[in-house]
């Protein structure tokens, strides 16, 4: 990955960036789930995990997916991840699949160290420009998509959100 594609991402169109002006951890984010009929399919992709294994979105068909774009240098991302670990533990059996896509520039070793430290219990994949472009251009982290069992995008979260926010959302979908 090089810096050029990052700047190209930046000029990719920003979709649905409404400035709601929320501040602080205390305020629950306001979000609305797209009505079932209006949801668009989540683009498929193939990425490599930390062990070199190739993974596709279609591997998780039929599950509710939390697709989380993050990086180890992103503090709000690091705060969220233990929450995702908890959600995976609680709802994995019911059909939840959390997937993390790291946009770290420094390579998989940095990511591996963090993942081991935190005890991440879901797949962590190394992201690339293709997937970022497919998902409308990632300009800020964390950016998290929630995808329903039919493989359609339900919502996009930009920035940190409390565990309770995601929990409420997936409960409606599971």
């Amino acid at each position, binding site marked *: 990955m090089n*810096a050029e594609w990052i700047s190209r991402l930046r000029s990719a169109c920003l979709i*649905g960036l409404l*400035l709601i002006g929320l*501040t602080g951890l205390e305020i629950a984010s306001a979000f609305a789930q797209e009505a079932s009929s209006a949801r668009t399919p989540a683009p498929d992709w193939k990425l490599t995990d930390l062990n070199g294994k190739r993974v596709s979105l279609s591997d998780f068909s039929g599950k509710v997916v939390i697709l989380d774009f993050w990086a180890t240098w992103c503090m*709000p991302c690091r705060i969220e991840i233990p929450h995702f670990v908890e959600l995976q533990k609680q709802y994995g059996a019911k059909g939840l699949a959390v997937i993390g896509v790291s946009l*770290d*520039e420094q390579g998989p070793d940095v990511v591996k160290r*963090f993942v081991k430290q935190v005890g991440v219990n879901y797949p962590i994949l190394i992201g690339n420009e293709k997937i970022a472009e497919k998902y409308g251009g990632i300009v*800020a982290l964390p950016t998290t998509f929630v995808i329903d069992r039919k493989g359609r995008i339900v919502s996009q979260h930009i920035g940190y959100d409390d565990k309770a926010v995601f929990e409420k959302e997936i409960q409606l979908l599971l």
Partner: protein
Amino acid sequence: MKIPPLLLVAGLVLCVPKEGTAEDAGETYTNRLIHEKSPYLLQHAHNPVDWYPWGKEAFDKAKKENKPIFLSIGYSTCHWCHVMEHESFENPTIAKLINDNFVSIKVDREERPDIDQVYMTFVEATTGSGGWPMTVFLTPDLKPFFGGTYFPPRDKWGQPGLVRVLNKVAEAWKSDRERITANSDKIITQLQSAIAVRSGGDKLNDSVARKAYEQFATQFDSKFGGFGSAPKFPRPVTFNFLFDFYGANPESKEGKHALEMSIFTLRKMAEGGIHDHIGSGFHRYSTDKLWHVPHFEKMLYDQGQLAMAYLTAYQITRDPLFEKTTRDILDYVRRDMTSKEGGFYSAEDADSLLTLGKPEHAEGAFYVWSKDEIDQLLGAERAKVFDYQFGVEAKGNAAEDPQGEFKNKNILIQRHDVAETAKKFGLTKEKAEQLLAESRKLLFDARAKRPRPARDDKIVTAWNGLMISAFARAAQVLGDPSYLEAANRAADFARQKLYRAETNTLARSYREGASDVNGFASDYAFLIQGLLDLYEASFDVRRLEWAMKLQQRQDELFRDSKDNGYFSNSGQDSNVLLRMKEADDTAEPSPNSITALTLLRISYMLDQDDARQRAEGTVKAFAKQLDAVPSSMPQMLVALSWSRSKPKQVVIAGKADDAATQAMLREAHRHFVPHEILILADGGDGQQFFSDRVEFIKSVGKIDNKPTAYVCENFVCQLPTTDLKTLANLLTRPAPGKTSAKISR
């Protein structure tokens, strides 16, 4: 105590020359102030009044002889303090009256702001107003029972003179001692409970900033700038609030107006007589509403704070006037107010001798000019341009001159901008500027031959903190390495000479050695702020480490762990009868306001939750006053604003000595970003310092071997960038909200 003859001679040789001292023929007096280091105290060492410094010797004498204490508090640039000294303390008859009936103590309020605060509280509470010189009568156990400010020697215009007051108090003490003593006990108890109630509160109204803005808008003088009527003080904390308010509301009518009020006022001050157009720097306040006729003393704490206000004005407007004014102030301090070792002196007096060797002195003598003088020095061509530009008139230009001090004298005030002046005389702008620059130099050199005003060369820790901030921020925004050097030297001086490593404490001041007096809350708070600002200019983490150690000590010594907020003194000195938490931001910010802000900055830099809680607790401790009169605490409102609107956290990966990294750091500093934290991830010790405390910094690195900026705000992180324009855009656009949005395509 007998004064050894050698010491007496040494004292006479070393004494600071006092303007206008009339020594009685053949009689020279020397009192115990001769052993003191404060220039203000030394100025009184040859008064016939038998002055003692504040301390055990005086207290014991008062107790032993059962005499009340005559306490006089002032400072070296205080004009009316000089007047009272000249009229009363140099008068042997009045001195005898004092010496027979009282034990006299003189205090320099800049050395002992804690003592000053106790008795000022008393004087304000009992008379409705305060000021200096402060004159207070105390029982032998230091409790005040009567006080005021300046007293003329004899009754004047219905006001009692000092002689009458002294006689009355002496009589009352002889006949009514028990009642006086009982009253004084009651007074102190009442004051103690009054100040305890003053702070407090919990919930803060959401709209206090808006209310403060409205209060300032009401006070704003839209014709001449400034707030309120004459005398007008710069009070730079006002600008700090208004700039922040603008930063939080850049698009609203109120936000824009807040900016306008600041810019207009700063411009008017820069043009005014309160600005020394020949030697640079600002005088302490303007006696008129026009910012024209100043009170001529120059105080270090004004220079530091004003330099920062002009710097922010420059960041926002890019108006070269503001950059020039910042530089002028800093160059003045470097040239005239810096010790050989790099510490900064406190003040320059308003008065000076008219001629060397003769006792006559006058306010502003050093700074004012007759038209003839100017015309003679400059020659016709320059003089006509200069006189026009700076409002020089044959009969003098001080329109409001109640004391008649400036007859036929001119106080330079910029009447026109250079373009106008050039046009008037058919010159190019460059030619006009050249003539003006030459003129200023000629006048500067001529003025240097005049007797200088006395300089108080005490080095006060708190005020050095403010100055370190000013030089550091100027280095950041203007990219001038010489300003960084000045900040570093001053910080090194503070470390070596004002700091006692064994106890992790600060001294209040330094003059020919560090003072025995321990630092107060403001000494810690302002120096800590200076070190944070210095870190963001130099990226030397040792400055941060030291700041954190000092913060820990400040918390131990001054913090009210029960009700939050910081007391101004440590409470360890039982002779200081009140322990107060300063709230008001006046000519200087209160230590509470500054500490709240620095704790927040530390909490964001180092992800320290307890620092954030202490900061928020400090703000809340003053909720009552913030709700009632928010315009009395503008600097605290800045801290409140930081706690509500979290800063942009900028981490730049690169090396401090590398040109490309420096270019990126300069870009990060160039813009007006109301709340910003800047960290350098240098791939070495600096980065290690941070990653030991904040894990994610470990992962910050250069991309493509170029300096890279990682910008996060409000729990959203932008993707890292190596492009300066992108960085500029990230810093200056409005805050991204966190969003959770429906996908609509």
